[in-house]
């Protein structure tokens, strides 16, 4: 066994002084294995999502608990789930899946406020946090807390209500878990207090917001007739292998059957392991070749180390969750 490892990973007489893993035939075999594997994994995850699928471990009840925990630590009052805000969050998630966008404002100009008002919530203050690609609830909350603007939303004294939606579906071609958190407050007395405290002048129109940041809007309580928005497919439609269930006031993504293997973790871990292994073997090859004073016809290992390191960074960036 030891001899096999040395033969495979270190330059020695048995492998013509070049680790067997770096031989052309082995490189070609591994390359082909990844090419074939990519289509195989894709096919299996599409055909048998119960075997190889996306696992949704983000829970709205847990989101509420963790959010309120952070607020309690900051000496703020807890937020209360509001069914209308949860409906608004679900509407937003549906809209993002249906129209395939990842932004606070839809490509056709639909703001978060439209979803909130359509759900029947007349807000004084409102805000929205979005997250995608996270595998568990605490990662989502931590990511929001680590971003100043999202943190400001979570720890704002202006809000007293919150609504969550967790959806699973295809966004920009990627099977992902989408989390929508909508904040709001309706009370007139509270609004006056908040406005007074922050020295903000009330505006008749919602504040113009930039697309890349979470949003806080303020609006005088003016009853306006909103044009009805054409119904969008439900979350259940957006995520075929899963079903939607209502738990309390929030939408929970509940798998009909939890997949045996989480496809995202599976591909990420295999890719990172292979890349790290190659970097390790290239470094080892440089050290041992120098130590043994080997002269060989080969490419520069340093080049390959740089190239694979770039792919490792790329893989980490591309597979981590994102917030806006």
């Amino acid at each position, binding site marked *: 066994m030891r001899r096999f490892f040395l033969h495979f990973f270190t330059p020695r007489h048995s492998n013509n002084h070049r680790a067997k893993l770096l031989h*052309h035939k082995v*490189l*070609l075999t*591994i*390359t*082909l294995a*990844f*090419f074939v*594997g*990519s*289509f195989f*994994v*894709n096919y299996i*995850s599409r055909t048998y999502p119960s075997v190889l699928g*996306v696992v949704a471990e983000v829970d709205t009840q847990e989101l509420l608990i963790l959010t309120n925990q952070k607020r309690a630590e900051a000496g703020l009052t807890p937020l209360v789930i509001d069914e209308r805000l949860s409906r608004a969050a679900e509407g937003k998630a549906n809209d993002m899946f249906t129209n395939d966008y*990842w932004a606070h404002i839809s490509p056709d100009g639909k703001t978060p406020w439209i979803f909130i008002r359509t759900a029947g919530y007349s807000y004084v203050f409102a805000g929205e946090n979005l997250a995608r690609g996270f595998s568990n609830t605490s990662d989502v909350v931590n990511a929001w807390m680590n971003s100043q603007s999202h943190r400001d939303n979570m720890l704002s004294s202006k809000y007293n209500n919150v609504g969550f939606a967790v959806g699973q579906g295809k*966004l*920009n*071609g*990627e*099977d992902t878990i989408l989390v929508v958190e909508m904040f709001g407050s309706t009370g007139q007395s509270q609004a006056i207090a908040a406005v007074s405290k922050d020295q903000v002048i009330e505006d008749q129109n919602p504040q113009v917001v930039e697309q890349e940041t979470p949003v806080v809007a303020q609006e005088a309580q003016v009853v306006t007739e909103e044009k009805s928005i054409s119904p969008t497919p439900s979350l259940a439609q957006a995520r075929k292998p899963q079903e939607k269930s209502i738990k309390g006031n929030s939408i929970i993504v509940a798998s009909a059957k939890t997949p045996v293997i989480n*496809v*995202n973790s*599976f*591909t*990420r871990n*295999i*890719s990172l392991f*292979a*890349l790290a292994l*190659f970097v390790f073997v290239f470094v080892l090859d*440089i*050290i041992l070749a*120098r130590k043994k004073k080997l002269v060989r*016809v*080969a*490419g*520069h290992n*340093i*080049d*390959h180390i*740089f*190239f*694979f390191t*770039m*792919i490792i*960074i*790329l*893989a980490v*960036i*591309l*597979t981590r969750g*994102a917030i806006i």
Partner: protein
Amino acid sequence: MFDKFKKHIGYYLSLIVILIFALYLVVLVSPDRQLQMSIFIVITIIYVFWGILHHLLNHDLSSKIVIEYTLVGALGMSIILFLFKGGFGL
């Protein structure tokens, strides 16, 4: 290792700049997976040619080295494809 790095400092620094620029581009076009994959293919081709060119200028180019760079580039591409096809888009 460091002697070799010093000897070819210009080449290695330019390679690092190219790779960092590629990373920046890929993050910039996020989350468009098709565009990201296209950028990655282009950068892999540049990487392979850059390596071959360097050996050519160094007068130590051989078919074995050409194959090695091509295979390393193809391996990198296949791993990214595996990642994208396996749940992260495409």
